[in-house]
């Protein structure tokens, strides 16, 4: 029992020792705007340097993940003097409610801004109710 526990700790340590290497370059958290209109949700994210090719938008179950990597605008051999952007990758995730249609998400990328349109399911769209005169 004690041995098991010890080995368990050893594995835990091993994982911990690996973790810093994995997170050496933490992806940037892109700032987003989330807007809702009658048809769906409009999400805009600032991801400067990302092109259509470097972008990945994934929906897994109810989690929407946005990933992007900067195209080679900044050469790797440059000597940095001052930096506010310390990474070339972006990543951010959001949970989606059951009221949106994840199969019909539209994405576009222009001038470093990602725009996503997440339509609402047909049955939750607001409907105008006609009142008939009796």
């Amino acid at each position, binding site marked *: 029992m004690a041995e098991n526990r010890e080995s368990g700790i050893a594995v835990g340590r091993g994982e911990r020792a690996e973790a*810093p290497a994995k997170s*050496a*370059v*933490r992806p940037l*958290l892109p*700032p*987003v*705007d*989330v*807007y*809702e*209109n009658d048809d769906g949700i*409009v999400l*805009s*994210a*600032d*991801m*400067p*340097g*990302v*092109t259509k090719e470097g972008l990945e938008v994934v929906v897994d179950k109810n989690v929407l993940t946005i990933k992007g990597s900067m*195209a080679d*605008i*900044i050469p*790797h*051999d*440059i*000597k*940095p*003097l*001052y*930096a*506010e*952007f*310390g*990474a*070339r990758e972006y990543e951010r995730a959001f949970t989606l409610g059951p009221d949106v249609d994840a199969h019909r998400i539209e994405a576009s990328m*222009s*001038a*470093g*801004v990602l*725009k996503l349109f997440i339509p609402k399911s047909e049955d939750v769209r607001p409907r105008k109710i006609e009142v008939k005169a009796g």
Partner: protein
Amino acid sequence: MMSPWLEIIDPLWRDFDRLKQEIERVYEFGSPVGNIRGVVKGAFPPVNVGETTDSVMVYFFVPGIEPSKIDLTLERNQLTIAGERDTLPDAGEGATPNGYYRRERFCGKFRRVISLPESVDPGKVEARYTNGILVLTIGKKEDEKSRKIEVSVS
């Protein structure tokens, strides 16, 4: 691949720095102490400055702005960027400011002044806008370029 920009940021503080940035963003606090000319971390647009042997490179992260709406001036080694970004049209036609759940992207007028190394030559500037990044290549003055010195064998 390791980004060269990380080399000047101590790895121990990187995570704390990120946490600080995220907390600051949540509460919309800027740093209480800043350079008098406005170089405060978190200001818009973020900037990276680097150098090669014969030029100084400045990268402004200005996504979603028409390049013609950005004003750049270089006076000796003082570089000023000014402009305006309106993010409301990104939310679609007929969007109103109170329909947002989150509004983190910078919206409005901006102006930032940064000091570049003394060696820059204001006469040799080139600016290019690609995928939301404005890249400035500023040549160094001839007499301030670093030179490789050949050692001759006697």
